[in-house]
């Protein structure tokens, strides 16, 4: 630790953001990284804790205090070495991770946390800029072949690790481009696609083969894959979105977030979208159901498309501003989070249950809802029962309804059904501790195994699965 009193001397300094009114005019990234001098100060705020709770809170166990210190000392190259030792894609987590590390940062007990995520991004982007990193194919090959299905963060991390260990890896992606949620799910203004492409190209140069537009279980039988490869990794994500079962659901103008967001990303890439199929918020009253990250992404996208108004409704109560006593540090803080998208303008409302949808000529124009009242948490089950508040019914204008209410698990038709792997109670693919499914040689990782989660968790899953697979292949 270079400066033991850094946290007392310096304030937290976040990246500068382009002002909302400016940035909603485009889909580009709007952050401005810190100068080297300022970055050092932010690194100096890290206290090099005896127990680095951040490192514990980070799903991929990033060596946060170590690289913070190296940044403070200006040893960016060594910092990158530490960072890349645990994280395959710091340029991605550095942009999109909700940073559980910062929630468990010791500094955050009574002061703003260290800007861990920003430092991470600066380390990796600087490394790219200075050209100190680049493709480095393995020195030898083991002769083992592994197929990875799905090119989202879990599949990519798994493929990257396996390739580094000398195995031949082929990644199958059903979409036309690789990257899964990173490419098609996350809006460009949060993660510009060149970032993902840069990484995928790098992986290709190191020997990973990407086969896009190949839908395993439909285009190719899984059996054939199993025959050709020594191991198979299922990393297809949790793509089944939760739907809204209320009267009026059949109306037009209602979309899942994962229909809406990818289209805009494709459009940004320059792909032509049939105007009839185009989902745009332009000039519309938009309602988004679901208060999570996807919901926020819809807000940002709708703003950029020129929505007239945006409302984001959440079924659950508004989280508190401060941590509740039963949600102490170093746990993830269940507090209200104001994302950059929210700064760009939207009305957020809570405890709202959608009762029905109505419209004109088959197109939605109203959403009817009621307010809920929640009881105290049951200490045993920790559940909170709710009831509708009489007389609180209301309706709002709604020309475009976006559903961002979470995911129910992996798609079963096709690959999973064909394989016949065991599923867990939640409908996810069940594995042993070593990530192997009920079928020998078939592994699973990421949301497909764990259910809907964060990108950083997906990376963790991919890495851990790769380690198990390597061990299994080599023994």
């Amino acid at each position, binding site marked *: 630790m270079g400066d033991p009193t850094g946290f*007392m001397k310096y304030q937290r300094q976040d990246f500068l953001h382009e002002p909302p009114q400016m940035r909603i005019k485009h889909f580009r990234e709007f952050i401005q990284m810190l100068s080297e001098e300022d970055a050092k100060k932010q690194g100096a705020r890290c206290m090099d804790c005896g127990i680095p709770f951040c490192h514990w809170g980070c799903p991929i166990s990033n060596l946060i205090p170590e690289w913070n210190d190296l940044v403070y000392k200006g040893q960016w190259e060594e910092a990158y070495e530490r960072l890349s030792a645990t994280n395959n894609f710091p340029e991605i987590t550095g942009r999109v991770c909700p940073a559980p590390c910062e929630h468990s940062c010791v500094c955050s007990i009574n002061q703003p946390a260290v800007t861990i995520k920003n430092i991470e991004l600066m380390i990796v982007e600087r490394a790219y800029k200075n050209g100190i990193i680049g493709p480095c194919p393995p*020195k030898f090959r083991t002769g083992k072949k592994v197929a990875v299905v799905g090119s989202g963060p879990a599949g990519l991390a798994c493929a990257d690790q396996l390739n580094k260990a000398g195995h031949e890896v082929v990644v199958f992606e059903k979409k036309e481009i690789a990257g899964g949620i990173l490419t098609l799910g996350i809006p460009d203004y949060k993660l510009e696609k060149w970032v993902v492409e840069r990484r995928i190209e790098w992986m290709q140069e190191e020997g990973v083969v990407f086969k896009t537009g190949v839908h395993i279980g439909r285009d190719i039988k899984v059996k054939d894959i199993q025959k050709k490869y020594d191991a198979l990794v299922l990393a297809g994500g949790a793509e089944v979105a939760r739907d809204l079962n209320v009267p009026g659901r059949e109306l037009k103008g209602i979309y899942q977030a994962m229909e809406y967001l990818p289209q805009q990303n494709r459009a940004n890439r320059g792909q032509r979208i049939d105007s009839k199929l185009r989902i745009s918020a332009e000039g519309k009253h938009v309602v988004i159901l679901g208060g999570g990250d996807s919901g926020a992404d819809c807000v940002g996208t709708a703003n950029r498309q020129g929505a007239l108004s945006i409302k984001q409704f959440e079924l659950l109560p508004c989280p508190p501003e401060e941590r509740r006593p039963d949600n102490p540090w170093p746990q993830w803080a269940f507090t209200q989070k104001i994302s950059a998208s929210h700064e760009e303008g939207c009305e957020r409302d809570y405890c709202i249950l959608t009762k029905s949808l109505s419209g004109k000529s088959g197109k939605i124009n109203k959403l009817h809802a009621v307010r809920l009242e929640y009881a105290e948490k049951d200490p045993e089950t920790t559940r909170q029962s709710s009831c509708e508040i009489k007389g609180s019914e209301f309706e709002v204008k709604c020309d475009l309804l976006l559903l961002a209410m979470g995911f129910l698990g992996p798609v079963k038709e096709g690959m999973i059904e064909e394989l016949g792997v065991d599923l867990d109670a939640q409908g996810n693919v069940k594995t042993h501790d070593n990530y192997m499914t009920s079928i020998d040689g078939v592994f699973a990782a990421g949301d497909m195994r764990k259910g809907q989660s964060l990108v950083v968790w997906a990376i963790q899953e991919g890495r851990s699965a790769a380690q198990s697979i390597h061990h299994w292949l080599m023994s």
Partner: protein
Amino acid sequence: MQNTFFPKKQGLYHPGQEHDSCGVGFLAQIDGKKSHAVVEKSIEVLKKLLHRGATGEDALTGDGAGILIQIPDEFFRAQERSLGFSLPEFSNYGVGMVFFPQEKARRKQCQSILEEITAQEGLHLLGYREVPVDNNALGEKSREAQPCIIQVFIDGKGFKKDILERKLYIVRRQVENIVEEKLQTGDRFYIASLSCSTVIYKGMMLGNQVPEFYLDIKDEKFMSALAVIHQRYSTNTFPSWKLAQPFRYLAHNGEINTLRGNLNQMHSREKSLSSPLFGKDIQKILPIIDETGSDSACLDNVLELLVNGGRDLPHSAMMLIPQAWGTKYPIGLDLRGFFEYHSGLIEPWDGPAAVAFTNGTQIGALLDRNGLRPARYTITKDGFIVLASETGVLDFAPENVLEKGALRPGEIILVDLTKKRVMKNGEVKTFYARKQPYRRWVEENKITLQGFFNDVAHATPDAEKHLFMQKLFGYSREDMKMILGPMIEKGSEPVGSMGTDTPLAVLSEKPQLLYYYFKQMFAQITNPAIDPLREELVMSLMTFMGNPGNILEETPHHSRLIKLRHPILSNEDLERLMLLNIKEFWTTTLQMGFSAYGSGDRLEEALDRLCRAAEASVSNGCSLIILSDRKLPEDLTPIPALLAVSAVNQHLIARGLRSGVGLIVETAEAREVHHMALLLGYGATAVNPYFAFEIAADMSMRNALNISISTNKAIENYIKALCKGLLKVMSKMGISTLRSYRGAQVFEAIGLNCDVIQKYFGGTSSRIEGIGLNEIAAEANARYQDAYKKEATTPSLLISGGQYGYRKDGERHLWTPETISKLQYATRANDKKAYREYADLINNQAEKISTLRGMFKFKETKSIPLEEVEPAEEIMKRFVTGAMSFGSISKEAHETLAIAMNRIGGMSNSGEGGEDSDRFIPMANGDSRCSAIKQVASGRFGVTAEYMVNAKELQIKIAQGAKPGEGGQLPGHKVTEDIARVRHSVPGVTLISPPPHHDIYSIEDIKQLIFDLKNVNPAARVSVKLVSEVGVGTIAAGVAKAHADMILISGYDGGTGASPLSSIKHTGVPWELGLAETQQTLMLNNLRDRVRIQADGQMKTGRDVIIAALLGAEEFGFATAPLVVCGCVMMRKCHLNTCPVGVATQDPELRKFYSGKPEYVINFFRMIAEEARGYMAELGISKMDDLIGRSDLLEMNEAINFFKVRGLDFSKIFYRAEKNEGVQLRCAKEQDHGIDKVLDKQLIELSKNALENRKPVKIEKPIRNINLTTGAMLSGEIAKRYGAVGLPEDTITCHFQGAAGQSFGAFCMKGLTLILEGEANDYLGKGLCGAKIIVKPPEKSDFYASRNIICGNVLLYGATSGEVYIRGRVGERFAIRNSGVHAVVEGVGDHGCEYMTGGRVFILGDTGVNFAAGMSGGIAYVYDPESKLDSRSNLDMVDLELVVDKADAREVKSMIEKHFQYTQSKKAKYILENWENCLPSFVKVFPMEYRRVLGKMMKEDEEIEREEPEFK
């Protein structure tokens, strides 16, 4: 040892751990005239030293006492008729004092051997005399063990005295060997003395019983011109007649810390012993040392050899216990030559020692280099001398006294009865230093290598192999950052905080270096640790390589040696050595490797090969063996260097080849201080850590450090850090020189099985078994595999380590984010479920074992319902919080703990930083912030009578878990106004806690301190805090005999303060071991029922409490856990004052973040107690009392199958001696402190009017050395009534005449004036808080007081205020840690004003060496007309300047005027009369830091003054 009265080795008890210490002395009629009066006087001295001895379980059984006198020829002649034979003339017959077995048949057998050998040696055994004894005087235990005491008379057959003496020695050694071999009588046969000039009367008794028991002594014809006396205090209460002293040539008050090494070295010298005086007989006396004797007895054995080998007695004694003579020590060149020459011959028998020695015509005494035992003497005008551990042991008419003095550190005094004169230190030493041209011999033969230790050479890192090497030798990122980084940057050892909570090496799943299976040992109580920083001048890392040859000869060739300043060889040094083309120093390099992936067998073979190769190369003439792991071929795994070194060392010792050989280790594995200490401690002569040098070079070249430094500087710093660390490791064991540390094996192994220990580390204790060679090989192979593993991409990072900071892939910790957050949540929300989860995480170690107790299991017993178990409230009263000073933790945190503990009836601990008087007053809401336990630590900060009377317990901290044997320091910038106030010091001035208590150098000293404390506050119990290590049980037994009410056994792993990392990790052992050993040893000694036991050290749960109770603890201490409850998140940055949660910081901004509350702490303790209740119900025991010591309810969890723990065996921990059945397992009665009869009882009675009405009182009393701690109890009464303010000056004036006992005026309060006409012993004015003490010689005495020592050592230790006037000189360490007293004396010994932080000292005479060491505050004025002060001061922290300031001169003069007024000092008178001439000879000793702080204050004052004129 068979048939001994010591219990045999059992459980954790080991008889080898026994310690003793004592009162010692000699007296002589200088003209050699024999008289019975000398004998009578010797008995009187013994009686006066009675309080320095101890009694066991029955008050009459003493630990041993005796006298050594000249053969009372006249007395024996008077017996001739009854003897039935006539004696040859004096000195032509030998007398043996023999302890025979009581059984007649055995006795006969012994006698016939004796007769046979005597005849064989050409002498004739004249006959026997049964010594008349009266054993009614003895205690029961002593009587049971009483031998049959018979004198044997041997006709000298006309041999001359010296030759006869040697013959008798040869006879005795043979008889001893043969009797033991044939009859295995063990201790039951013992020859106390066999000589033609002296005889010893001794036994297991108290001093006053000696003349009662030995009827001879009272006979008027029983005459001698000299006597050596000894009163023993041992840690045990087992009857042993043979361990009573004096021995044949000496009586020893002290302790040999380096015994193991000394024994080994002597053993390896035996082969080369030869002397024309012995001729072939030399073989008959082997082995030289009877290892069943005590350390003192072993020393006597060697002294005997040297003397009979033809060296003079004083010469021999100086060889074995040399004074300090290093470059920093002021000493003449011839003398330095003498000591350097002899240090190449033999290593010091190092440790505190006052030794009285005699051969019947010469008698004398000497002190060790540190002068840690008192030795006071008086010489009378009528030609008599007495020297003893105390003064005042004999009464002399004042006018008869010629001189009063004391031996100073390293000094010798000699009385030659034939020359009829006393020779002082200088004369004796000069005589021997010039007996041979030692200085020239050394200069001419010493080998210096060109460039040796000049500039450190470059090390060239091999970038390509760097990572490979790191892996092969088990480096981690943490090693680089936490260990090597700071060493290279700062040249000092890294510091950390908050103890350790990682598994012991044997429990760790990560491959461990062999070093980590060893823990450093440290001195506690029986000898003091040394301060390696402030007292560096007595320490030495110098070491020699080469062949010292036969120690019975003296030739120039003996100094043909390579001299190394320290034992760390740079790469270049080693290269030069290898190229050295001198016949005596041929080198050979042996590789430390075994076949890769080989099992333990392969490793064993490789070691055997290595040993044989070493032996062969020595036989071939090589004298430097380099064991190397450099450039090992690919098919070899490195052998752990420690294993290789120790194996070769032991092998060469066994072959008698070691002493001439330099054993150098060239290793990449060793890097930390702990590693170096182990390699040297197990026999290496020097170490070349070549790879660590490369790392240093690499880090500096890559700028990987926090600062930018050159490669050379990096390596230099690293070496410096190692050397400093080594000095510290040695000093904590009280060892001064590396030459005696080498091979001393002062380590304890944890987790190594007895096969490995016996074969390679013989003599090391390892008490729970553990891994063997197979596992050691497996761990080495794991590193090998990691290094040679092929990876497809560029290698990943080095492993994290995680020993010091948590890493997910690193070493396991018990404090984790989960446990900390669960505990914090549980205690804040009072959530029992969350507590349960927390406790489960800690307790369930079935798979991941972190602690020894994690592998314990409760036996299945009949359970009882929970309701039947005593309530949690009762159990909570047994809980205490750890000693954390206000200064180390914030005021808020400190007071939270106090309030919480006071509410639940437990106790909190003030720590060593004193306590604000405000806190003694209860709060409005009924809470109290007063810490029930007040700690008395080595710094004695704020320890006043008021502080002590506000305590329920007074705790003497001997050691602390995080850094046993080390001192501490609170840097000036942390000493805020608040802290300074409670510590009675000045803000901004650094406060140093010395490593030892300077009033506890021995076991009898702690008895004295306990007595002192008990006097000040008789209502408080006195406890003693020890740290777990092998032998702590015997220490505890000694402490129990010293009347402690409670003994705290701390685990090594606890500790909240800042400490060097190597101390936190590698010193001391877990409390499970220390506690069980203590319980077992106290039980064996029948001492358990009179003392309570407490355990602490990383206690976290109710299960920990139950296990501690089962192993013997009545009370339980917690420190880290309550801090976590108060918000601590284990930042481990306490030492940086940056605690982000306001717990361990003084920063007002950070303290605002403090969020702890007493309620949380109470919740914590209640949940702990409730958890404990659950276990009690399960065990079927309703009361905690019935749980204590029930180790039979524990067993080992055999289900654990981790490969390293399979070999562990806890049976010694669970052991219960059979005789324990039905005996109390816990404290059942109170100690008898013996404070009912102190002089103070009378003083208090006589002071009634003063105490009650503040009316002046005058008292006159005689005083003797047996009146201990005079004034303390009276002061306690004053403090209780009037608080810190005390009474008005001179309210109670006590006038004493005589020699005061120890601790005269200790802790005396304001309002008290003590006038002592006579002299005083040690510790006068200790902890003085306001009183005035005046000491002057009796009116009638006419010796020049200012040249005589009239007060002892360690005066005014930790004193806070008051005035002292002493007409005369005083001993060592005057005004040590004084923080406020104004004192005038006429000369001081060594280390004067050490660690002083405040007050004024006026010295009207000269000072000893190392004056003002560590002095950070206060001012000393020294009258130094000969300008010697400069060379004798330690100038690290002070400036010397003339007294130019008028105010200063006024102050000096007025104090001298007062001195004259009070004492009528002639010296004062002279100075005052010649004031203008004398003033320029005064030197002002001004601490730099103090000056800075004062300067700041003055500026502020000045500003105020400057403002004033404007208002005119």
